[in-house]
């Protein structure tokens, strides 16, 4: 394979490309789905092919194919170069590849328990066991689990990236994820829903550690409490503690996305949008001094794990917000070139046939020293929003809304009864500026971040510790 990729790069250079990059990617999926306790179709798939990028006369071309004979690959190179050449006439500012620390290594994560060692029967049996535990817990809570959807996906990605600037990296990374959707129903109270995901870059040992039946039991117990006990709350100004899951989505949506350099440059303008931040906003105060938001692909077992990005650049931790100030943008080599800086290895692609673009990996608020008890002890009137269902944010990443699911009143430092769907609808700087204390209990959730055209849903972790906001307006329940 390496020979084929080298051949493609050499051919493109011979044809006049100033930069060439070839990537072989093989994704092996297996997916199992249980709906209302019944197995749906189980599937497996091998998505294998080669992508190729060139810069020709300041224009960028991308091509991909799953037909990997040498003649097909040569044809792909020639077509990609020709298309880039055609589009160069609509390129007023020539594009290039910025400086970066190129990798030349092999990264292989070896699962302790390989996926192939777990039979289909065992996988479905585990899902059924978890589903049954959930149903039993709902019955105990006098509720009905009217809708259950539990999926289990394993994925092993092998990549080889070679480019004309000396990058040569090879990786093999396993990933496993469980996605759950639960609908609880009670007469008189209607329905409540909970959706959550767990995912890691590891083998089956992660699934064993997750203990799905116990996790689903506790999720259903909490959901049934929300359904049967949550009371309407009045809109007003409160001190608010955000739970780890909420801090995670806030980190991702309101610090990660705004700091993506391709948005700043307008490259995603027609699809995922732009950002309220501009190139000159490095150093701008957007939050209180206790806020540090980090994106780090190098965390072992993390769902967004990698050590080299799809441009072969060595990965590292990035401080997006440091002491409340915008500290660093997420860069690939294309955006780094335009901004006159270095890539920080944010280039990712979800499959062989997708262009690598600027993406997050694992985005989270860096923990500090408060325990949960300390965060709530001096709140007189407040709300603790543990997790959420509805959320969205505008395409400048400035106005967002997070609607709590499991949420509690706080009175005189104590958690009181459940409140129904508190709504935090707030601007990005107002949210980060309201933070006065950050907890010490970092926790992550798995997610698939959507961006790009064609859409690329890429594995990420979102996370953080508990975090306290002072004097923020919460909209009341509908």
């Amino acid at each position, binding site marked *: 394979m390496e020979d084929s990729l080298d051949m493609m790069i050499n051919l493109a250079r011979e044809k006049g490309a100033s930069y060439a990059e070839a990537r072989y990617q093989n994704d092996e999926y297996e997916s199992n*789905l249980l*709906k209302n306790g*019944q*197995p*749906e*179709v*189980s*599937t*497996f*798939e*091998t*998505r*294998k*092919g080669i992508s190729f990028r060139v810069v020709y006369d300041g224009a960028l*071309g991308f091509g*991909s194919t*799953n037909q990997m004979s040498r003649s097909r690959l040569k044809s*792909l190179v020639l*077509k990609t170069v020709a*298309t880039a050449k*055609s*589009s160069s006439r*609509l*390129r*007023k500012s020539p594009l290039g590849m910025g400086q970066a620390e190129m990798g030349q290594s092999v990264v292989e994560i070896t699962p302790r328990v390989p996926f192939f060692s777990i039979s*289909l*029967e065992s996988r479905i049996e585990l899902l*059924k066991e978890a589903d049954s535990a959930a149903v039993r817990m709902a019955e105990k809570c006098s509720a009905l689990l009217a*809708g259950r959807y539990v999926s289990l996906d394993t994925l092993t990605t092998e990549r080889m990236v070679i480019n004309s600037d000396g990058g040569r990296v090879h990786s093999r990374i396993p990933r496993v994820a469980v996605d759950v*959707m639960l*609908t609880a129903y009670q007469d008189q109270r209607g*329905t409540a*829903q909970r959706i959550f995901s767990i995912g890691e870059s590891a083998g089956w040992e992660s699934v064993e550690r997750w203990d799905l039946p116990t996790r689903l039991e506790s999720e259903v117990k909490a959901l049934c409490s929300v359904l049967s006990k949550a009371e309407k709350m009045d809109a007003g100004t409160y001190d608010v503690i955000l739970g780890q899951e909420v801090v995670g989505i806030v980190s991702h949506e309101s610090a990660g996305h705004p700091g993506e350099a391709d948005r700043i*440059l*307008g*490259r*995603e*303008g*027609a*699809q*995922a*949008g732009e950002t309220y931040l501009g190139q000159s906003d490095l150093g701008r105060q957007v939050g209180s001094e206790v806020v540090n938001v980090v994106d780090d692909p190098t965390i072992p077992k993390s769902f967004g794990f990698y050590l080299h990005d799809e441009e072969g650049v060595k990965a590292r931790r990035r401080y997006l917000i440091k002491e409340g100030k915008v500290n660093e943008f997420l860069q690939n080599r294309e955006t780094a070139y335009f901004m006159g800086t270095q890539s920080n290895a944010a280039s990712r692609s979800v499959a062989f*046939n997708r*262009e690598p673009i600027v993406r997050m990996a694992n985005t989270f608020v860096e923990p500090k020293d408060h325990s949960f008890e300390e965060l709530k002890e001096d709140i007189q009137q407040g709300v603790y929003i543990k997790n959420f269902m*509805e959320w*969205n*944010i*505008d*395409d*400048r990443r*400035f*106005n967002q*809304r997070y*609607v709590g699911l499991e949420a509690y009143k706080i009175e005189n430092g104590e958690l009181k009864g459940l409140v129904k769907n508190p709504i935090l*609808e*707030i601007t990005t700087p107002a949210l980060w500026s*309201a933070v006065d204390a950050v907890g010490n209990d970092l926790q992550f959730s798995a997610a698939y971040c959507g961006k790009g*055209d064609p859409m690329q849903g890429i594995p990420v972790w979102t996370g953080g510790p508990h975090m306290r906001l002072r004097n923020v*307006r919460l*909209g009341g329940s509908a």
Partner: protein
Amino acid sequence: MKPQEVCQRAIKLCKEEGATDVVVSVNDSNETMIRFSNNQITISDLLNELACNIFVKVQGRSAGTNLMDLNQSTLKAGVKKVVKMAKTSPPGEIWARLPQGPFSYNPQLLNGSKVPSDAKKLVDWVQGAIDGGTGEGAERMAGSLIAHNSTVTLMTSGDAFGVSQGGSLEMSIRAFGKDQASGHSVSIASREGDFKPEEAGIEAGRLAKMAAAPAMGGAGEFDAILGPMVFSDLMNQVGRVASAFYIDSGMSFLKDKLDLKVAAENFSLIDDPTLVDTYGSAPFDAEGLPTERTKIVENGLLRSYLHNSTTAQKFKTKSTANAGLIAPHPFNLVVEPGKESLDSLMSRIDNGIYVTNSWYLRYQNYGTGDFSTIPRDAMFLIKNGKIAGSIKELRISENMIRVLQSIQGVTQERKWIKWWEVDTPTLSPSALVSKVRFTRSSQ
């Protein structure tokens, strides 16, 4: 091997391994995408793919795979693995046999037009669209142009066989002016003659110009006109959750509402893959059934869910030919036209809002239909029946059934919409909806 031979071989091998029902499809597709931003091309993408999808049942046990390497040995290994997977899977709730053919398909749906994909032509279209927008005064244009050609060969153990070929063109373009003013438009077509990229550029530019210097919008309940890009997004939600799969899994606000009033009487929504020369037309569904025109909502009444053979058996009805091997899905949504013009709808509003685009729709509860979505691009205040200024930074925080039941009228003029936010092609009017709840950030 040719696609038909791949299908025949795969079905034979699957049966030999013990499969009771088999669907094999081979998709040979070529796509060229030109993405642009800041009035220049960002990247040109060439995406070529040849893949074989195999779905098998061993009585009530089912499994599927997608193979991207179609040589004899890979095919044989893939077949062995998928049938074994089905055999070892616990039985599902239902075993519905595949529809029994042979079937005849509409030749016009089978033989769609191929669309141009040469780089020069596509770059010319992009240039025309950018020039169209900047000619209206836009400072920056961004978007994507996609030319797609494919041939799908489908064969089932139920004697269905068809070869469908055709192409599609899609331009999604956004114009940016000063101070957060922007406009968005699309043009989609299944043949070159219907494709109007320059007009899309002009419309986006014109909207951006009209939206200049937007003021902060105020929260409250307003009568609202939802333009085709907004209304088609809502229609995609209705079409998606009309799938019996989502009804069954608690993910639909249409559950238990068959033959009940879910919308205003002036509203009808149809899934119509049989419309020749439209973007979402299709001769057959994923089980080989000839596609049908299905009324989802007729004059406000929920008439049908969307089914494949498995969900149909569970719901004790017949398939609507909307398979999806796992989840049934709409192909090509059509909202029935009204009798009014946009001006006429607007003239009925004393104090309201006109929203031209939206995105990021998320649910608080799929079962109840509580959701919010964010208007983006041009949005206007309406005062005394006329546009009275550009506004920004509002959110629609609503319930899907309430919105559908509050439709006061839809325009006669409709537009085909499909873009990043709207997956299923939708022929959508503008709609007047009463008392739409708009919210905004409090700090």
